[in-house]
Structure formats: structure tokens, C-alpha cells
């Protein structure tokens, strides 16, 4: 064994060490359908692979929805939570992905990698579009302008002029899966694995970005933009960077959404869907990145069960929960957990000092 090999394996081992939590989570998610299949459905491992009906298949579907929402919310957290840009047009990022990918597959019969490439170019263009207004307007006016831009998209997508492609008010339907591992109907487990892989990959990339030199500048912009400018950072480029990364992520989430859902409704472009992202990161904790994952799970499950129990009133209850969170839990689950973690550590240290009798 050579020295180089040894360092590579050591580096890999330390990488495993640092990423333990995420990797364990990924493993648990992969095993999850099998556990459900065996314990609840009373079916075997094969049932999952064979895409049989049952709780396992259904919960995989729900989980995929959560993963897609998490991807979407994590991108919003980068814009709002990390960089501090109040954008009310984030739904457009998602909807552009869903609609363009779906339309390209359905109406233009393009090979899916090419379609994906085109969608990514669209993501770049819209990020630049949002960024173009940045040097001129800040704060609430930026929120208004982004809301305006997204509303234009929302209106255009519903226009009857485009109904052949986008399906007007009803939405886009009839997108066929281009390849077997993107087929949520017949190969759900494969699709499930794909979404897990994408989500975990994106999550790791995001945690790296937040920790990178560029990420640190983004946080600085949120904290005090004028000061960041006075340090010599051209903050425009950093905001453009954040918007671009977020746009690419949201577009990916949208493309997955187009594959997973039978219909892409115009709602995903509306203000309501931006509020969904806002709600998710509020639940999870603004600016925490991992909060988006937690928030998406809590949000979708809450929505699912409230809908099941209360039917039509569920939206009302979600709205009330949203208002309560804004009022009483401003740091969200992960944010509050981290704040308390400091207290817990202090508490533990204190107890430790009592036990050891050492003066601190």
C-alpha cells in the first residue's frame, strides 16, 4: 500500500466521520420502505422492488413529495435565510423548472438530458433576471418587484394562448417518464432512490457552500450589507451567485415535481407556493439549511394528516399554525434547538464542574 493511498483512505474516513449524520439519514431513508413493507403491509422485501400497492409504496410517494418540497425550501433558505434577500417570487423558480421540463418532454419530445440542460439554462436566465433588479431596489421594493415578476409568469402560464402546452388553468398533464429510473408510477422505488440521492447531494453541497468563503460573504451580506461593501466585496455578484444556485436547485425540484405529479397546476407559480417555502423554513428555522429538511417533513405530514382529519378546514389550520409560528417561534425547530443546545452545553458543563469539584 502506498502512502498516497493511505492518505486518500484516511481522508475518506474523516469525510465519513464528518458526514456521519447525513449518511445515516440517507441509509435510514433507503431502508424505510422495506421496514414499512415488512412491518405494516406484511409483505416482503420483494414487494418494494416489484412496486406493489400498499403502505410502503404510498409512503414512498409522500416521502418523495417531502424531498421535493425540501429541495425547494432549501433553495429559498439560501436566498432569504443565508443571504437575507426578501424575494416573494421564489415560486417562479420552481414553476419554471416544472413547466419547462414537463413541456419539453411532453410537447417537444426531446431527450431528457438535453431537456434538463435547457431547463438549467432557463434557471440561469431567471436568476440573472432577478439579479438585474437587485442593484436598484432593496428590501420591500425588491419583494414587490420579485412578486411582480413571478405574477407575470403565473398569469402567462395560465393564459389560453399557451393552453396547448401549459394546459391553462387546469395545468400541465400527461408528462411521460423519459427513462425507467424517473418513472414514479412503475418504478417508484428507483425514483425514490433518485430523489434521495439528489436531496442528500444538494444538502451536502449547500452545507459546504454555507461554510465556504463565498458562503461566509453571503452571511455577512445578510448581517450588514453596507459593511460588506465597505470591506471591498462587490455584493451584487454574491447575491447573483446565491440566486443562481437557488434557481438551479429549485428548477431541479420543479423538474422532479413534473415527473412525480400527474398534473402540474399553475398554483406552483403563485404567491401561495412562495408562502409554502416561507412556512417550511419558518418551521425548520430560517438560515439553518437543515431546517428546510425538517420543515418540509413537518409541513407535508401536517398538511397530509390535517387534510385527512379535518378535510376542508385543513388549510385554515395550516394558516393558523403559520401565524402562530411567526408570532411565537421565530427561530423554528432547528434554530430553537441550536439556541437551546448552547444552554444545554452550559448546563452540562455546570453539572460536570459540580461533579468534578473543579472551579470554572
Amino acid at each position, binding site marked *: 500500500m502506498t502512502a498516497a493511498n493511505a492518505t486518500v483512505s484516511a481522508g475518506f474516513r474523516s469525510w465519513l466521520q464528518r458526514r456521519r449524520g447525513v449518511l445515516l439519514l440517507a441509509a435510514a431513508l433507503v431502508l424505510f420502505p422495506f421496514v414499512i413493507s415488512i412491518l405494516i403491509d406484511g409483505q416482503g422485501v420483494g414487494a418494494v422492488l416489484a412496486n406493489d400497492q400498499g403502505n410502503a409504496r404510498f409512503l414512498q410517494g409522500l416521502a418523495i413529495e417531502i424531498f421535493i418540497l425540501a429541495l425547494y425550501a432549501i433553495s429559498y433558505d439560501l436566498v432569504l435565510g443565508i443571504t437575507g434577500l426578501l424575494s416573494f417570487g421564489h415560486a417562479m423558480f420552481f414553476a419554471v423548472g416544472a413547466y419547462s421540463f414537463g413541456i419539453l418532454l411532453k410537447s417537444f419530445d426531446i431527450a431528457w438530458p438535453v431537456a434538463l440542460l435547457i431547463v438549467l439554462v432557463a434557471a440561469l436566465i431567471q436568476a440573472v433576471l432577478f439579479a438585474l433588479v437587485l442593484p436598484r431596489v432593496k428590501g420591500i421594493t425588491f419583494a414587490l418587484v420579485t412578486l411582480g415578476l413571478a405574477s407575470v409568469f403565473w398569469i402567462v402560464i395560465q393564459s389560453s394562448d399557451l393552453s396547448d402546452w401549459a394546459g391553462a388553468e387546469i395545468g400541465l398533464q400527461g408528462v411521460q417518464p423519459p427513462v425507467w429510473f424517473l418513472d414514479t408510477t412503475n418504478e417508484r422505488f428507483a425514483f425514490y432512490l433518485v430523489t434521495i440521492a439528489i436531496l442528500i447531494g444538494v444538502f451536502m453541497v449547500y452545507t459546504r457552500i454555507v461554510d*465556504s468563503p463565498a458562503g461566509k460573504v453571503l452571511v455577512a451580506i445578510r448581517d*450588514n450589507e453596507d459593511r460588506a461593501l465597505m470591506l471591498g466585496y462587490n455584493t451584487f455578484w454574491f447575491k447573483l451567485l446565491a440566486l443562481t444556485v437557488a434557481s438551479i436547485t429549485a428548477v431541479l425540484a420543479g423538474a422532479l415535481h413534473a415527473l412525480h405529479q400527474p398534473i402540474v397546476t399553475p398554483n406552483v407559480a403563485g404567491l401561495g407556493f412562495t408562502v409554502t417555502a416561507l412556512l417550511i423554513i419558518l418551521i425548520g428555522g430560517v438560515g439553518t439549511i437543515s431546517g428546510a429538511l425538517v420543515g418540509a417533513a413537518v409541513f407535508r405530514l401536517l398538511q397530509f394528516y390535517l387534510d385527512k382529519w379535518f378535510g376542508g378546514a385543513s388549510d385554515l389550520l395550516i394558516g393558523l399554525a403559520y401565524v402562530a409560528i411567526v408570532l411565537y417561534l421565530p427561530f423554528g425547530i432547528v434554530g430553537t434547538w441550536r439556541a437551546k443546545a448552547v444552554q444545554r452545553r452550559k448546563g452540562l458543563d455546570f453539572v460536570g464542574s459540580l461533579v468534578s469539584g473543579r472551579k470554572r
Partner: protein
Amino acid sequence: MSDVILETHDLRREFGALVAVDDVNVKIEAGTLHSIIGPNGAGKTTFFNLVSGTLPPTSGTVFFKGEDITALPVHRAIHRGLGRSFQITNIFPNLTVLENVRLAAQAMGRDSFRLFRSHGRYDEYLRRAAEVLEQVGLSGQELMPASTLPHGDQRKLELGMILAPDPEVLMLDEPTAGMAAEQVPELMGLVQRIQVAGTKTVVLVEHNMNVVMRVSDRITVMHQGAVLAEGSAAEIAADERVQTAYLGQLYEAPNPEAES
């Protein structure tokens, strides 16, 4: 006589009817500690904002190392080696002390757009930040959130943030504002050391004459937007107009023009 590093030509700024800076011409020589003093409301901070590019002038030009930087965006001026502080403490309150300075150091490098490696791997910035914190006397408090520091230490931190990118000219706007009297000599000593140690130029704005008299190579006195006098500390101390501007505002001839 050494080279002029920073120079203004008929620099002027009006706010409505008020002329805050009135055709100011100042030459600052490289390697000196040049103070700009004047009573409150004399236009010192506005002058500072004009030079550093945070405020566009109504007319006039600013030259830095012989180049016209009047229209240069703020962040560019800093990359050319012009650092400045603010009269009101201006830091990243939620970030740690170390991170505040590290960000300042990172701004000068070429790694700020790197996305996929931890910032901790770029240890030259960390090292520089530690060095600067040592210099301004804040080592040991690296991991405190900046907002929890006492006021005096926050001013030191700000000084550290200007020092970190190693600028040629440091523009300090009342660095001692609000500091306890016994802390002032310490900070001024620090400022002086910075200037003597390297080849740095320091431009200092103060409304307190005593602070600058001892340390300055050259002093410009501003009064009601215009330059009242310029010279060495001794010359300024002997200047009668300066004495009246500072102490005898009340006994000066009435000047209704300045009021409207």
C-alpha cells in the same frame, strides 16, 4: 517632500441649500499621519464619505495615487488600498470577532467566490485575522459574537477590520468616539504604531484637538464646510483662527450666509 497619495480638487457637496463641503482642496502625503479636525458640523464626515466614495460629490474630483477615483464604486476603492472606518460602530454584530476580521482579510484575496471548500481551509486569512486581532489587542476574544463586546473593544475590532486587508491609506473617522478617556491614548498609540511600522498613510478625523496634536504630522482644520487652516501641529496650535473656531465660536463675526 514625499509623494502625494491622496488629493482632492475643489471637492463640494450640497444637501439642498446647505453646503456641507465647500470646495475643499487637500493633499495628503504618503506615509504621514494627517488629521482633519473641526468642531461638530464642520463637514468632516461628509468630506470622508466623498473621498471614500460612499457619497457622490456635487462637483470636484478625488485622486488616489494619481488616479481619478471620484466615480469609483466603494468596493473598488478598497481594493486599490483605501480602507476606512465609520464614526458609528459598523461591524457584523451577529458574527464572531474572528469572522469579522477574517471576512475583511478574505476580501483582498481571490478566493471569495470559492464555493466548495470549507473557509477553514484557506488558513492564510485565518492567520492574518489572528495576527490583526493580536495587533489590536483582541486576542482571546475571537469566538465572542461581535455585538457582545464592550464599546471600546468594538472600536478596536473595527480598526482590525480596516487593517486586515493591509491598505495603503487608512481613513479613520473619530476612532475614539465614545471611548473612555483612559482608553484613548492606547488606541492612538495603536494608530501611531500602525503608521510608523509600515509605509502606511493614516487620515484621521477628530473633533477633539488634544487627541491629534501629539500624533499628527499634519493637520487640516475644517470649519463650516471649508478648510480653515492647514499645517503642522505647532502651526495649528498657534493659529488664531483655529482657536476662535474651536473655542470662541461665539465671538466670531456674525455670518448669516452660513445659515440659509
